[in-house]
Every structure is written in structure tokens, then in C-alpha cells.
């Protein structure tokens, strides 16, 4: 029985790993289609100044291989991408790969702080509503969770920005200046430089976008924590712990939360994937210089190399984060039959 379970776990992990190159291949193919769907002539004109001669257009098409068969073009794209060459932006001629390297830490910092806020508030609300079922706190946290899932994040971002700029005097746009950039995570950079004033400034700028972005994951964490805690609180060993006369806090934290933690951690991991890959709207509104706003701006300028590269990197990150979470989950909970 145990062997069979272990075998099914191994084959699950194996299947997930085998599927990985296929998924990444499809991610690459779909991003390739973004530029392939634009006629070569349009791309040639976009690549240079408006008025260029027909001969020049043709030569650009030939130089870039845009007259080659589909498969050849795709393989060239794949080959270059694997070597870290994601093309250049038409607008400022900057290589996409170096722009992404610069912007990725911004997105990661926003996502991580956002996830921290979501977990902190979501778990507190979830535990409170599970232990005080059908009380006002249960109802209000359910309402809050429902609101988090129904209110558009970009609207909330606009409102937060409007209200805060009117009533509170904190900087809202951009990421601030950490002094010297080492990791690209400004909070960390300013701490490493020992510059507390810069840390405060970067933290203030991060707080509002991260909180706004946290609403959806917070709603999900609240619901999962509540459901998971309710499951555990009904279990026999909790009753035993209670009858032994253990203090309430010890029961909640040491016995219940520890056992309810797995689904919460899983959902947190999945949400991190979404936060890394989906902050396009929030970043745009807060002028946050990350991958999401990079893609959004390029999209509107019909600048397709950054869109391609940005989506490729974000989707790949999402796939890898999800895979790690799933594998970790399979490892942590031997009862889980995945399939």
C-alpha cells in the first residue's frame, strides 16, 4: 500500500517534470505568435522611421528572416530566447533582456510584500471567523472576502491613490531611490546601504500598491484558512487537547493551525505565482517600474518584442513557482493522492 502510494507520488512528480518542457514550449510558441501575427511589412516600418523606401523595407524583412517559413522563424526565436536574446524594443532600441533583468526585482518585491500582507491579514481573519463561527467577525470577514473578489483591483488602486494623495502626505508614484542598487529589491538595498531614510521612503511607496494588490489573495487566504481551521477544530485530537485543559491559544496555534497550515501554504504559493504574473494593472496605475507596466506600455505602443519577452518571463516564472508548490505539497502531505 505504502509502496503503491510512493510509486504514484513518484510517477506524479515525473509526469509534472516531463510536462514542463512542453508547457514552456507552448508558452514560447504563443509569445512567438504575438509578433508572427503582425505582417512583416508593418513590423519593418515600425522598426524604423515612418518614411522608408520599399527596398529598405524588403532588406529589413530579409535581415530579420521574416520571409522565412513559420517553423524556421519559431526555431530562431527559441534559439535566441534560450541564449537570453529577446530582441530589442522598437521605441528606445533597448535590449528586452536587460530591461527585464532590471524590472523583474521590482515586480518580485511588490509580489512578496503583497503576499506577506495577504497572509498576515487573511490568516488572522480566517482564524478569527473559524473560532467565532456565525459571529459578527465571521460575517464581516466573509463580506470583506467577497468584496475582495468583486471589486476591480485597478479601481481600488485609483480610489486609494486619489484618497491618499488628498488626505495623507506620503509619496505614491514610483519606487523611490535606495541609494546604491545591488539586488534590485529596494527595501533590501537601502537596508544593506544602512540608509534608513531611503528605506522609509521606499517602504512608504511600496505599502499602498502592495496592500491594494493584496486584496484578492487576502480574500482567498481568508476563505481557505477559515475552511481549513473548521475542519481541524472538529477533529478528535483538538477535543482531547481541550479536555486536557490546555490554554486556548496553545490549542489554536500549536495544534490547530499547524495542521491547517498545508492548504494555506499551498494557496499562498499559487497566489505568489499570480502576483508575479498578474500585477499588470496595479503596476500601471502606481507607475511601478516592473515587468507588468513594461508589458502594458509596450502593448499600447505596438512594441511587440517587450510584450513577447515580458510575457515569456512572467509565464515561465508562474509555471516554475506553481510546479515547486505542487511538488512541495506532494512531499509534505503523504496522504495527498495527486493525479
Amino acid at each position, binding site marked *: 500500500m505504502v509502496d503503491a502510494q510512493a510509486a504514484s507520488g513518484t510517477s506524479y512528480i515525473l509526469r509534472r517534470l516531463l510536462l514542463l518542457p512542453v508547457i514552456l514550449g507552448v508558452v514560447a510558441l504563443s509569445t512567438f505568435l504575438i509578433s508572427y501575427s503582425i505582417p512583416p511589412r508593418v513590423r519593418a516600418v515600425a522598426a524604423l522611421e515612418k518614411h522608408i523606401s520599399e527596398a529598405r523595407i524588403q532588406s529589413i524583412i530579409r535581415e530579420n528572416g521574416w520571409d522565412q517559413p513559420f517553423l524556421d522563424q519559431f526555431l530562431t526565436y527559441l534559439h535566441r530566447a534560450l541564449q537570453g536574446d529577446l530582441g530589442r524594443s522598437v521605441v528606445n532600441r533597448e535590449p528586452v533582456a536587460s530591461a527585464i533583468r532590471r524590472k523583474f526585482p521590482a515586480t518580485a518585491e511588490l509580489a512578496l510584500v503583497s503576499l506577506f500582507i495577504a497572509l498576515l491579514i487573511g490568516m488572522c481573519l480566517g482564524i478569527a471567523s473559524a473560532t467565532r463561527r456565525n459571529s459578527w467577525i465571521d460575517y464581516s470577514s466573509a463580506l470583506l472576502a*467577497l468584496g475582495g473578489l*468583486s471589486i476591480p483591483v485597478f479601481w481600488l488602486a485609483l480610489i486609494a491613490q486619489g484618497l491618499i494623495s488628498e488626505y495623507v502626505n506620503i509619496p505614491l508614484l514610483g519606487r523611490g531611490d535606495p541609494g546604491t542598487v545591488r539586488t534590485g529589491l529596494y527595501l533590501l538595498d537601502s537596508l544593506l546601504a544602512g540608509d534608513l531614510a531611503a528605506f522609509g521612503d521606499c517602504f512608504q511607496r511600496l505599502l499602498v500598491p502592495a496592500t491594494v494588490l493584496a486584496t484578492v489573495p487576502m480574500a482567498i487566504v481568508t476563505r481557505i484558512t477559515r475552511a481549513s481551521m473548521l475542519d481541524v477544530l472538529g477533529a478528535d485530537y483538538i477535543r482531547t487537547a481541550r479536555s486536557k485543559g490546555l490554554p486556548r491559544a496553545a490549542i489554536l496555534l500549536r495544534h490547530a493551525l499547524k495542521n491547517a497550515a498545508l492548504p494555506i501554504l499551498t494557496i499562498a504559493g499559487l497566489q505568489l505565482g499570480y502576483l508575479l504574473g498578474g500585477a499588470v494593472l496595479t503596476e500601471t496605475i502606481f507607475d511601478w517600474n516592473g515587468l507588468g507596466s513594461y508589458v502594458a506600455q509596450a502593448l499600447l505602443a505596438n512594441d511587440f518584442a517587450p510584450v513577447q519577452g515580458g510575457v515569456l518571463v512572467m509565464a515561465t516564472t508562474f509555471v516554475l513557482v506553481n510546479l515547486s508548490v505542487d511538488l512541495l505539497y506532494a512531499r509534505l502531505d503523504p496522504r495527498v493522492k495527486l493525479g
Partner: protein
Amino acid sequence: MRNRAIRTFFRSKTGVLGACLVFLFLLAALLAPVLAPFDPEHQIDGKESQSPSSHHWLGTTPLGEDMASRILHGARTSLKVGVISVAISCLAGLFLGVIAGYRGGWVDTLIMRAIDILMAFPSILLAITIVSILGRSLHSIMIAVGVVGIPVFARQVRASVLAVRELEYVTASRALGAHASRIVLRHILPATMGPVIVLTSLRIATAILESAGLSFLGLGGEAILEWGTMLAENKDHYARLPHLVLAPGIAISLTVLAFNLFGDALRDALDPRLHR
């Protein structure tokens, strides 16, 4: 069974609230041309934007258009986007889910792995990719949001099919020599309907939210009567004319909330096992 489901639904206060809001939304969307006091694209006069008044309930835009009429017409667009994109997700999901669940074997494996791949994309990035390939327009948004929703339906339908495939009445029908298409239409599809109806309501909520986000980014093209686009158009006037930003946002939130409440209550009524 059906009566019990209806009774359970109406016992849920939030469900009834959701149903009322959905009804109001449908009413606004269908009767917008009659209800709207002005032509939503008519620029009333060249004067400055007006604050809400008895004449213009939600004020006017900087171009002099009546905001209330624009919001009402925006409901039409949201309804269209919601219905068409969810129809795409639902039909494709039903088709794939039934084939995968009923046929099993390599067909099942192939379809489900394809679904896994589709789910490997964050939804907003997948939608952005599709809109970039198809070109910026409201139609592209509907298709993109529709494709994004396919996996949810396909997986749910497959699970429902697997649950009934080996039940006695289906096996009996097969033993009697019934054709596969008859078995699917008469026995399998009806069993999937409960969860599909619930998902449809919940997905309409998500579809309206996602398409508003995509239009906000400017992917729906310019000057369309869509709530997300209206937010984008008016966001720079927030400090001076907050009602122009509040109105479309509240419209989106209420509509999404309505379909969420409605869907949650439907789920409790139709599938007691899923009761939270």
C-alpha cells in the same frame, strides 16, 4: 428535488439579493436605449464637465456626455461581453469535458494535458497574449476571456461525467445498445448541468472583471461604451470630478458581486455536497 433546490435558494438572503441585483443589471442592459435619458455619445454642449444634478444624475464627462446614460449603455456592453465569452468557455468546456470523461484513455490524457497547459498561463497574461495576436478590439477581448475560462468548465464537466459514466442506468442504456451520442445527450449531459449552471454564473462575474481590466489597459480599442474604458478615460480627472471614476467602478463591483452572490447561492441550492 427541483422544488427543494428552489426553496434552498430563496432561503438564502444573499442569494436573493444577488438575484435582484442580477435582475436590475439585466433590466438596465436590455432597456438601456429606453431608460437612458440622453444619447450616451451626444456631446451636450461644449461647457465644462458638470457635477451630478437632477438633470444629469451622474454629471457629465469633460466632453459633455451624460454619465448616467453611458453607465446604462455600459451595462449592455458588459452583458454582451459576459454572455459571449462565457458561452465560448462553456461550449468548448462542455465539448472537451464530455469527450475526455466519456471516452477516457489517451483522448482523456491528451485533452487534460492540453487543459493543464492552458492553466499554466496566468489568466491576464494569456488574455493579453490572445488580444495581441488577434488585434485590439472588444471582440478580441471576448474571445480571450472566453478561452481563459475553458479549463474551469472542462475540468468540472469531466468530473461530473466520470461520476455518472459507470452508474447503473447508464450501463443499462449501453447494454441495450444505445448509441454513444444518445447516451451522452440523454444521460450524461443532464447530469453535468447543475455544476455548469453554477459555474456559468460565477464565470460571468470573472469575465466582466477581466474584460474591464483589459479594456482599462486600452485593449478594447478607443471610445467604446465599456465601464473599464470609462475608468481609463476619466482617471486623470479623479481629484476634480470623483463621480466620473466612482460611477463605473461601483457599476462593475455591484455587477460582479451580484453574479458572485447569485452563483454561490445556486451552488448551495443545486449541490448540497459543495456546501461550504
